[in-house]
């Protein structure tokens, strides 16, 4: 298999996406057709690459002798690319129904499709330079999606997204420079690339840089104290919030953190140092902080966004355990959280799109009127809080097992934080379900007579996600084995 296929899979959505607003469509259906064709071809191609696992790398072009834009597929990239490739078509299907009543649809789909290619670029990046470039591009490509409605709120949200992300990337840049100067190569190698001879007695300096770099990339993963942009960005249309702000963008942050921790700096250098303590403490704080904010929030999408903040830090917490098991837990939660949260967001989106209700106190009695949406929402809530039999339990189990077996007292605190967060999750998710299904004895259903379930384009992805949550919860074994293979040599 020729490595040129990498260029195709990354450039196709970017270039074809850029054409979306320029093509002359006779009607909306043609545009839908074009967009779906691009997305499905890209996603099929990407999955085919993952299936074939070609070994050669593609060097797209070189900046200098050793700095290049190059792509390759490895274990970690497979997980992220696979996740994105599966979710993107479903989210696109959903947005066709959601965006029907919004203006500037072409522009929306243009950036939406381009982001797909850029995210794949991050997943397939062979070295830190490539990843960094696509990481910056992702910020720029997703900015217009937040700005989409062009309300004052959206502009403010877009501005803070931009500042936070660019600021974070600047810190990440410092990390990249140090990797380039102290490492053997810019490539990602499991176990790290630092050259110990060159490192000498500069280890402490590298630790400082690691913490900066970790924080820099964690901005996208909305770690405390850099989490404020994510809930604000909830003003974007729901397909964006669901796919980008629960999966692609934020997980690109987590993915980058995994890359620098396990593949560039290497856990050998970091484990047991103050740097590990520092970053782990931050993630533990975020886990509880995100949930507490979610609990206080009455806006449905913002509540879910705060929940994302907390859950992303589950992933980062897994990373900071710095053992192979920790990475397995992190990967596991990366995948499962994506499914759970995208599902919850799509339910919220269905409510907003069909009824215009945005606040939780407006949802009384909706369970009877939108049974499909709220049953699925409840399932995703239960998955998020970790009811066994659904996927959330599996990932929490692996994260916690990693924490307990690392024998690190701070990780025990993390376990407690996870459970506190699970309780808070139960509270902020189930109160919504209880409100929807049991509005009280004297509730007047005539007041919400106009509310009903959305069409199949929205319900189908929801049902698939719900099925996936159950399936992954019951039969997670193959997936876990695959993750373990990926991290075996850390």
């Amino acid at each position, binding site marked *: 298999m020729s490595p040129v296929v990498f260029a195709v899979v990354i450039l196709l959505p970017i270039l074809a996406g850029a054409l979306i607003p320029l093509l002359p469509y006779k009607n909306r259906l043609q545009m839908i057709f074009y967009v779906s064709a691009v997305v499905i071809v890209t996603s099929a191609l990407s999955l085919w690459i993952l299936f074939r696992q070609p070994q050669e790398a593609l060097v797209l072009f070189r900046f200098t002798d050793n700095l290049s834009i190059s792509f390759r597929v490895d274990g970690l990239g497979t997980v992220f690319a696979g996740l994105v490739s599966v979710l993107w078509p479903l989210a696109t299907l959903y947005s066709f129904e959601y965006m029907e009543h919004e203006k500037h649809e072409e522009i929306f789909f243009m950036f939406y499709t381009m982001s797909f290619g850029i995210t794949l670029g991050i997943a397939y990046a062979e070295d830190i330079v490539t990843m960094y470039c696509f990481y910056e591009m992702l910020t720029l490509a997703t900015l217009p999606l937040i700005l989409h409605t062009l309300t004052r709120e959206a502009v403010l949200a877009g501005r803070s997204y931009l500042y936070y992300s660019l600021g974070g990337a600047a810190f990440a840049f410092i990390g990249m420079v140090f990797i380039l100067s102290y490492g053997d190569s810019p490539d990602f190698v499991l176990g790290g690339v630092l050259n110990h001879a060159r490192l000498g007695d500069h280890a402490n300096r590298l630790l400082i840089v690691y913490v900066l770099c970790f924080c820099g990339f964690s901005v996208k993963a909305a770690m405390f104290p850099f989490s404020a942009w994510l809930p604000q960005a909830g003003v974007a249309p729901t397909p964006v919030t669901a796919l980008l702000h629960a999966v692609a963008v934020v997980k690109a942050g987590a993915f980058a953190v995994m890359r620098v921790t396990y593949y560039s700096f290497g856990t050998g250098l970091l484990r047991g140092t103050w740097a590990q303590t520092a970053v782990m403490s931050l993630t533990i704080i975020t886990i509880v902080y995100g949930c507490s904010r979610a609990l206080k929030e009455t806006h449905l999408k913002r509540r879910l966004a705060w929940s994302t903040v907390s859950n992303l830090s589950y992933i980062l917490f897994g990373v900071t355990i710095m053992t192979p098991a920790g990475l397995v837990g992190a990967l596991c939660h990366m995948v499962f959280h994506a499914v759970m949260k995208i599902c919850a967001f799509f339910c919220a989106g269905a409510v907003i799109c069909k009824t215009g209700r945005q606040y939780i106190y407006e949802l009384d009695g909706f369970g*009877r*009127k939108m*049974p499909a949406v709220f049953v699925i929402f409840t399932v995703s809530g*239960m998955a998020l*809080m*970790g*009811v*066994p*039999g659904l996927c959330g339990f*599996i990932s929490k*189990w692996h994260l*916690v*097992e990693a924490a*307990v*077996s690392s024998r690190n007292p701070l990780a*025990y605190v993390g*376990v*407690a934080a996870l*459970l*506190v967060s*699970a*309780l808070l999750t*139960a*509270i902020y998710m*189930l*109160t919504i379900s*209880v409100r929807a299904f*049991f*509005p*009280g*004895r004297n*509730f007047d259903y005539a007041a919400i007579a106009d509310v009903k379930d959305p069409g199949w384009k929205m319900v189908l992805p929801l049902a698939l996600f719900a099925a996936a949550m159950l399936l992954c*919860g*019951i*039969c*997670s*074994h193959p997936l*876990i084995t695959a993750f373990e293979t990926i991290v075996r040599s850390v």
Partner: protein
Amino acid sequence: MNAWILIPVFLPILFGACLLAVSAAARYKNKPEPDAAALKKLHLAAGAVMSVSAALALLAAWSGDWAVTMFHLMENIPIYFRVDDVGRLFVTVISVIWLLVCVYSFVYMRHEGEEARFFGFYLIVYGVLVALTFAGNLVTMYLFYELMTLTSMPLVLHNGSREAIMAALKYLFYSMCGAYFGLFGIFFLYQYCDTLTFSAGGTLNAALAQGHEGILLLAVFGMLIGFGVKAGMLPLHAWLPTAHPVAPSPASAVLSGIIVKCGVLAIVRVVFFVVGPEFIRGTWVQTAWMTLTLMTVFMGSMLAFREPVFKKRLAYSTVSQASYILFGLSTLSATAFTGAMLHVVFHAVIKCTLFLTAGVFIFECGKTRVEELNGIGKRMPGVLWCYTFAALALVGIPPTSGFISKWYLAQGALEGKIGVFGWLGPAVLLVSALLTAGYLLPVTMKGFFPGKDAPEADVTVKEPADGMLLPLVILAVLAVLFGVFPNPLVKFAGQIASSVL
């Protein structure tokens, strides 16, 4: 393959889910409320499924030892069912009481409405409970423990008042909090135990645990507190007196009689089948546990004594009585363990009787407060006699059942090498028994002898329909009979005790 044994788990769950789906669909299409004929069909179907499931559950429990692995949730962690003596005891109690209360509900739920939803959840919870008692390892148990919370919550908020919904949420969040304490412990036990499969005497790997006793004890203590939530143990007991009384009376009866016992079951499983009693004997965990249970026993009785709302009084009484059982377990002596197992059975029967009586009072004449019940015995002598027998049994007057279990509990405490608790425990139990007499028996006295100047009771009030009276009488008779012929049960409980201690 013994898979048929799981029919009593899945039959009620599936049927219950169907009931819910059908009733939801009917409401979605704005169909009118079901008429009498439709309700009759519903009762017939629910009753049939309930009886078949109960019969199958008993058959499964008493047809010898078996084990079924359903599937592997994770590597090393199967969803695994096995029946042992503890499971047999619990599943028998649960099935008999669930069936009787089901019969009672056919009449009672007429005035609550939304019957399809009630019976739907009622059956689902039954299936979940059977699975819980048959669970063969800690993770399976945890799974069904959480499902029990989630599926029994709608029983609490059934009447849909604001009070009921808030109470249900309180129930939910306390239980979840407890479950997560439990989960914290499970995570640690998984690391330090050979297996999470239950085996009498525990599976803790001493070599692995060496040097990590501190964190392990903390984890075990967390589990005691966590699973103690369901059993209404201090410090997380506050949901119980809120949630039990607002539920419809049959639901209160099973919540107080049965669901509370599932907290006990979980603690039995953790302490005697995974951690092993020897690990906590003489540690601060045992001391703290005994202290908490004794405080709960006393405090529960005290609060019940002061409580004027009848069902709430009974709920406080549950708080106190469930901790009798837990105190028996916490002494880690075989005799007290026997007493605890006996009290599980007796208290389930007795507390169901009491709550069902309270239900009759609400159903027939809408009386909820204790002082309104003056003279009720003239109108409903049968019901009040049932109440009186159950109350006497709960106080522990020989020859009723409560006497037997309390005897074993006190004797076990005196025998056990637990220092000051050896005499403090029995003393607290005694004081609490006096308080129990003080809060239960006045209802009987005022009921039969309201005094000369009391207003004449409402003449329209009379004994309830057979459907309600019959389960009540059966339960009351059982409460007494167990005291008169306790030997088979004592022997069985003793057999369990000797296998784990």
